[in-house]
C-alpha cells in the first residue's frame, strides 16, 4: 500500500516532467537570447541602453492668506561633473569661469567620492548665463561636464520669513538611506520650518525621461518615442495663514532690533505674522552652500539661525498677571470687590517684594490696568502654587502648542513637583512662589505661547491650534483643499474673562500702562511686560488683541534688551494690528468704525 499511497508512479512522473521541462524551457530561452539573438541584445546594451533621466519637479509655491506670492520658484542652471569621464586637466578652466577659489572642484569631488563614478555631481547651482554660453561653445572639449535646468526657490517677493519658511538643501545621507524610494542623491529636501513640515505636499513627483544612451552615456534618442516617460508633477501650492502686509510691517520694525512677533487670528489659530529677528538670507541656501556661509551664520553673536518666536524662553513678567487674576476669579477666591492696598511693596516672611509705584487701593481691574505688583504678590499667595500652575497650564504654558513647524520649545511652568525635583523636598520656600505672581522666577514661556495666551483672552477661552497652513491646491486634481482649524475651549467662564478683558482694555484705553498706543479706530486691548534678562538689559513685552469687541487679531511682541514694554513693544504691535485690520479699502474701514461705535456703547454701560 505504502508505495502506491505515497509515490505513485503517476504523481512522480508529473513532478519529474515538470522539473526537467522547466529546465529545458529555460535553457532553450537562454540559447535563444544569448546565442541566436545575442547580436541584437548586444547592440541594445552597447548602443541603445535605456537610461532614465530624472527631472526634478518644481516645489509648491507659498501664498499668503490673500493669495499674494510669498515664496516662488525660478529656473536656474546647475553645472555637473561625472567623474568616470571627467579629465582633471579641465579643473583650472572651470574654476576660472565659475570664479571660485582654486581647489573648489577637487573639494566637492572628494566630498562625494563614495558614490559611483557614473553618477554626475552638482558642482555649482544657479550659475550665470555667461557660464552656460561658455560651456556651449566649448562642450566638445569638456568631457564629463554637463549642465541641467532646475528650478530653485525665489525669495524676491518682499518679505523674508526665514524662520517660518525654512530652507531647502541637498538631502543628507542618513535621510536618503531611509527614503531611497522617494529621493535620489542630490535631490533637495525641506530643512526646518514650513518647507520641512509640508515636504510631502511641496516636493511633487519627479518626471522620468527614458533616453537611449550609448555605452559612453551619450544620449542618442528617446526610448519608445517617450511612450513610457513620466511627466513631472509640480508640488502642491500652499495657501498660508500669513498676512503679507502685517508680516512686512513686522519685518520693517525689527530691521535693527532683536526679538520676535507672533500674531494669531484668535478664533481659528491662523498665524497672521511670525517673525524672529534678526533673520538670515534664505537665498544663501539656494546655492551649493559654502562652508563660509555656515560659519558666519553659526558664529554670529546675534544668533540669526535661532528661531526666537517659538524656541526662545524667558520669564514673561507682568503679562502673566492675568493668570493669577483669572484663577482667583474663576475659583471664587476673590470678586471684583476684593481690594489690596499697595504701599509700594509686600512683606513676606523676612523678604520684602517691591512694587514699581505706590498704587494705594487697587482692585482686580485696576491692578491689571496699572500693573500693580503688590496686588499679585498677595493674590498668588492666596491661590497657592497648585491652582496657579493648573491655570497657567490651561492657557498652554509648559507644553508645546503643536504648531506646524518642527522648531518649538515647551517652556516651564513650575509646580510642587518641579521645585521638589530641582531643589529637593525642603530646599525651597513659599517665597519662590510669590515672584511667580508677577511672571518672574523659574517660569519660562515662548513668544508663540504668549500670542496664543492673548488669543484665548481675545476669544474668551476658545481658540484653535496655531498653524500656518490655511489650505493647499492638490496639483493632481487641481482642487483647493481647506485645512480645518482644530478648535478647543479651555473651559473658563465668560464672566471671569469679561472682568479681565475689560481691564486689558483699560491698559490701553483707560489710565493704564500702554495709553501711548490708544486708537479709537483699532480698539486695542493688551498688557505690557518686562522680562528679566540675566545677561543684560531687560526685554520689552507687549501682548494684546483688537478690536476689543470682536477680536480679529491677537499678538505678542518681544523686543530684546529694550527695557519697558510700552515704549517700544506696544507701538510695534499697534502697527502690525493696523496693517492687518485696515486694508486701504474704505468699505472695510467703515465697517470697522461701525463696530467700534457699538463697543463704545457697551463699555459705557
Amino acid at each position: 500500500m505504502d508505495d502506491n499511497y505515497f509515490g505513485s508512479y503517476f504523481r512522480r512522473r508529473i513532478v519529474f516532467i515538470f522539473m526537467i521541462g522547466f529546465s529545458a524551457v529555460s535553457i532553450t530561452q537562454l540559447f535563444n537570447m544569448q546565442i541566436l539573438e545575442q547580436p541584437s541584445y548586444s547592440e541594445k546594451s552597447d548602443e541603445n541602453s535605456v537610461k532614465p533621466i530624472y527631472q526634478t519637479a518644481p516645489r509648491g509655491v507659498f501664498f499668503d492668506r490673500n493669495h499674494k506670492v510669498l515664496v516662488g520658484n525660478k529656473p536656474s542652471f546647475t553645472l555637473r561633473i561625472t567623474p568616470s569621464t571627467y579629465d582633471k586637466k579641465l579643473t583650472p578652466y572651470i574654476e576660472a569661469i565659475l570664479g571660485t577659489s582654486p581647489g573648489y572642484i577637487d573639494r566637492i569631488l572628494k566630498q562625494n567620492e563614495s558614490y559611483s563614478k557614473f553618477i554626475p555631481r552638482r558642482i555649482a547651482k544657479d550659475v550665470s548665463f555667461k557660464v552656460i554660453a561658455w560651456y556651449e561653445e566649448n562642450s566638445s572639449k569638456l568631457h564629463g561636464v554637463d549642465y541641467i535646468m532646475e528650478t530653485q526657490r525665489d525669495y524676491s517677493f518682499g518679505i523674508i520669513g526665514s524662520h517660518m519658511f525654512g530652507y531647502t538643501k541637498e538631502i543628507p545621507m542618513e535621510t536618503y538611506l531611509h527614503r531611497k524610494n522617494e529621493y535620489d542623491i542630490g535631490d533637495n529636501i525641506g530643512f526646518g520650518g514650513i518647507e520641512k513640515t509640508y515636504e510631502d505636499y511641496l516636493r511633487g513627483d519627479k518626471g522620468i525621461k527614458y533616453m537611449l544612451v550609448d555605452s559612453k552615456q551619450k544620449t542618442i534618442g528617446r526610448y519608445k518615442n517617450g511612450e513610457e516617460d513620466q511627466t513631472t508633477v509640480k508640488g502642491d501650492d500652499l495657501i498660508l495663514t500669513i498676512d503679507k502686509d502685517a508680516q512686512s510691517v513686522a519685518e520693517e520694525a525689527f530691521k535693527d532690533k532683536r526679538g520676535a512677533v507672533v500674531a494669531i487670528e484668535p478664533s481659528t489659530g491662523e498665524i497672521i505674522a511670525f517673525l524672529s529677528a534678526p533673520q538670515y538670507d534664505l537665498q544663501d541656501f539656494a546655492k551649493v552652500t559654502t562652508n563660509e556661509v555656515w560659519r558666519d551664520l553659526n558664529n554670529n553673536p546675534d544668533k540669526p539661525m535661532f528661531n526666537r518666536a517659538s524656541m526662545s524662553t524667558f520669564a514673561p513678567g507682568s503679562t502673566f498677571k492675568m493668570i493669577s487674576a483669572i484663577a482667583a476669579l474663576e475659583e471664587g477666591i476673590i470678586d471684583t470687590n476684593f481690594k489690596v492696598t499697595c504701599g509700594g511693596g509686600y512683606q513676606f516672611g523676612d523678604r520684602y517684594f517691591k512694587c514699581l509705584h505706590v498704587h494705594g487701593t487697587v482692585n482686580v481691574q485696576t491692578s491689571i490696568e496699572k500693573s500693580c505688583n503688590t496686588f499679585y504678590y498677595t493674590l498668588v499667595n492666596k491661590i497657592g502654587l497648585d491652582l496657579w500652575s493648573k491655570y497657567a497650564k490651561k492657557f498652554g504654558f509648559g507644553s508645546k502648542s503643536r504648531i506646524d513647524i518642527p522648531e518649538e520649545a515647551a517652556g516651564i511652568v513650575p509646580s510642587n513637583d518641579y521645585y521638589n525635583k530641582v531643589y529637593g523636598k525642603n530646599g525651597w520656600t513659599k517665597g519662590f512662589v510669590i515672584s511667580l505672581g508677577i511672571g518672574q522666577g523659574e517660569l519660562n514661556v515662548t513668544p508663540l505661547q504668549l500670542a496664543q495666551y492673548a488669543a484665548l483672552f481675545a476669544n474668551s477661552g476658545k481658540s484653535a491650534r496655531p498653524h500656518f497652513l490655511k489650505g493647499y491646491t492638490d496639483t493632481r486634481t487641481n482642487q483647493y483643499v481647506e485645512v480645518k482649524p482644530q478648535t478647543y475651549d479651555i473651559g473658563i467662564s465668560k464672566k471671569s474673562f469679561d472682568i479681565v478683558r475689560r481691564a486689558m482694555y483699560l491698559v490701553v484705553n483707560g489710565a493704564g500702562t500702554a495709553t501711548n498706543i490708544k486708537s479709537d479706530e483699532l480698539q486695542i486691548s493688551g498688557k505690557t511686560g518686562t522680562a528679566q534678562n540675566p545677561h543684560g538689559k531687560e526685554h520689552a513685552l507687549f501682548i494684546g488683541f483688537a478690536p476689543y469687541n470682536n477680536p480679529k487679531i491677537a499678538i505678542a511682541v518681544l523686543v530684546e534688551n529694550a527695557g519697558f514694554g510700552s515704549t517700544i513693544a506696544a507701538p510695534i504691535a499697534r502697527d502690525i494690528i493696523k496693517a492687518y485690520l485696515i486694508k486701504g479699502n474704505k468699505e472695510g474701514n467703515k465697517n470697522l468704525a461701525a463696530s467700534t461705535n457699538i463697543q463704545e456703547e457697551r463699555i459705557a454701560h
Partner: protein
Amino acid sequence: MHINYKLQDRFDLAIFIPMIILVIFGLLAIYSSTYNHPTASGNFQKQLVFAIVAIIAFFITFSLPQQLFKSFAIPVFFASLFFLLAVLVIGKTIYGAKSWFGIGGFGFQPSELAKLGTILMLAYWLTYKNRDINNLLDIGVALAIGFVPIMLIMLEPDMGTSIVFAIITISLIFWSGISLFGLFVVLSPGFVVFASLFGVYAFTAALLLIVAALFFFKRDLFNSVTVFIINLSAGFFFDYAFKILKPHQQKRIASFLDPSADPLGSGYNALQAKVAIGSGGFFGKGYLHGNQTQLRYIPEQWTDFIYCVIGEEFGFIGSVLIITLFLIIFLRLFKLSATAKDKFSVLIIIGVLTLLFSHFAINVGMNLGITPVIGLPLPFLSYGGSSLLINMVMLGIVMNIYRNRKLHT
C-alpha cells in the same frame, strides 16, 4: 579518483557540493553588482557572514537526532505565526512591504521561518496516525495550516511569498494521495475567490461551474452541499477580508491581478534584465565587465535580479551551469523522496523540493522574461541572510534524513 564511499554513505555530496558552488556564485555576483555602489557596497561582506553562519546552521541541523524534527513541528509553526503577526505591528517597511524585523544592523524576515514551520507542520499533520486525506475535515485542516501564513504574508504585503506557500500547501496535499474529488475540493475555493475579484457575474458563474462539477462527481447530498457551502463562504469571506484591507493593500492586490498595470516600473527592470542576459553571449562579458551591471541599469540587482549578473558576466556557460547545479539538487531530492522510509520524511523532502523549485522557476523565469515579474529571491544566490539561512537549514534536515535512512525498517 578516490571516492570516500563511507562519507558518501552518510553525507550526500551530490547535494552539498552543488549547494556550495551556488553560494560561491551568489557571492561573486553580489560583489560585482555592489562593489562600487554608493549605498550597497557593504552587502558582499554581510552576505559572506550570512553564508558562514548558514553553513554552521546546516551542519548543526545535519547532526541533530532525526526524531527531533517531528517534535519541532508544532512549536516552530506557532512561533512563526507569532512572528508573522508581530511583524505586521512592529516590522520595518522596506520597499513598501512590512516584512522585516530590524535587529541592530541586520534584519530578519519571519516569512522565511514560516516556510520551515509550515512544511514541518503540514508533514506532521498529514502523517499523524491514520489520517485520511480524502476526508473533508482533514483536507480542511491541512488547507488551514497553509492558509493562515498565506493570509498574514498577504497583509505585509508580499505576494510572491504567498504564492510559494500556496504551491507548497497544495503540492504536499497532492503528494499525500488525494483523489481527484479531493483535489477538486482543495482547488475550487481558490478558483471561486479568484473569480470573485472580477465581479458578481464571474462569481456567480464560478459557483454554477462548481454545482455542475458536483453533479459530475455524483457524491452524496451531504458531501455535495458541504462543498458548495465552503465555496460560497470562501467567496463571501474573501470579499469581506478584502474590504477591511487598507486602500494601499487593495491597490497592490489589484495591480497584481492586472498585468498591464506597472506600478513599480517592473517592466523597465525586466527589459534591462533581458538585455543584460542576452548581451552576455556564449562566454559572457567577463567578471566585473558587464556594462548593464556596472552602469546600474537594474536597480537592486543583488536581490531578485541576481541571475542576470551571471547571465551578463558569465554568459550562456555560466547561466546553464547554474540551472544544472539546481537541477542536480532537485533530482537528488526527488530520488531521496523515494528512498526515505517514513511518510513524514518523504513529505519534508517534497516540501523542501517544492519550495526551492518554485523559487527557482519563478525567479529564473522572470529574469528570462518567460513568467510575470514576481519579486522572489533565487535560493542560495540572492542577497539576504534570512532566506540563505532557512534554505540551508532545510537542506540540513534533508541530509539528516539521508544520514538516517537505513536506520528505519
